[in-house]
């Protein structure tokens, strides 16, 4: 039983790390700040969320699981606030959104 939960937790962590990879790839390859924010928030929200979930499944204690939930919520709040503030200020400062040049 414990090995089954371990496997499940590890699988969640692997998928989470894949989201981090996608986020970093987006950070490097996307053309402007707004699209990069879009890529990054995937890593923050889903990547860390899945890793937290994986760790919670493995820990097997309710207190730890709640703590991990709190960590995820805090990172969510931080990421959402940061993304919104950066995007709003960038827009206010007149950084133009990228458009495809034909």
């Amino acid at each position, binding site marked *: 039983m414990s090995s089954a939960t*371990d496997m499940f937790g*590890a699988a969640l*962590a*692997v998928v*989470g*790390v894949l989201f*981090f*990879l996608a*986020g*970093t790839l987006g*950070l*490097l390859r996307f053309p402007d*700040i707004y699209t*990069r*924010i879009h890529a*990054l928030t995937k*890593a*923050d929200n889903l*990547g*860390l969320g899945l*890793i*937290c979930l994986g*760790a919670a499944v*493995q*820990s097997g204690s309710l207190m*730890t699981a709640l*703590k*991990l939930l*709190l*960590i*995820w919520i*805090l*990172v969510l*709040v*931080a*990421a959402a*606030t*940061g993304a919104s*503030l*950066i995007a709003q*200020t*960038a827009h206010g*400062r*007149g*950084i133009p959104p990228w458009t495809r040049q034909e």
Partner: protein
Amino acid sequence: MTTLYLVLVGVLMGNIAVGLLRILRGPTAADRIQAGQLFGTVTVAILLLLAIILEKPIYFDVALVFALLSVLAVVAFVTRSWPHPDAKDQDEQRD
């Protein structure tokens, strides 16, 4: 299982190494702070995985403090030090 987690931590460290490129390239300050924010999240993830590998739940608390304080840097950046195109005027206003 531990080996798998170590590989995952290694991949996350690689993320930081590659993310350094964005800090180097910019072009705007906002892009760099974005990379910094990603570093913060990656660090939280690394700490969580290390806590599992080393079987020390105390490191979840270190991750919690990081998660709590990660908002501070970006707020400080946006409200205080975003290089402003007409910063000259603001400097005069402030003095």
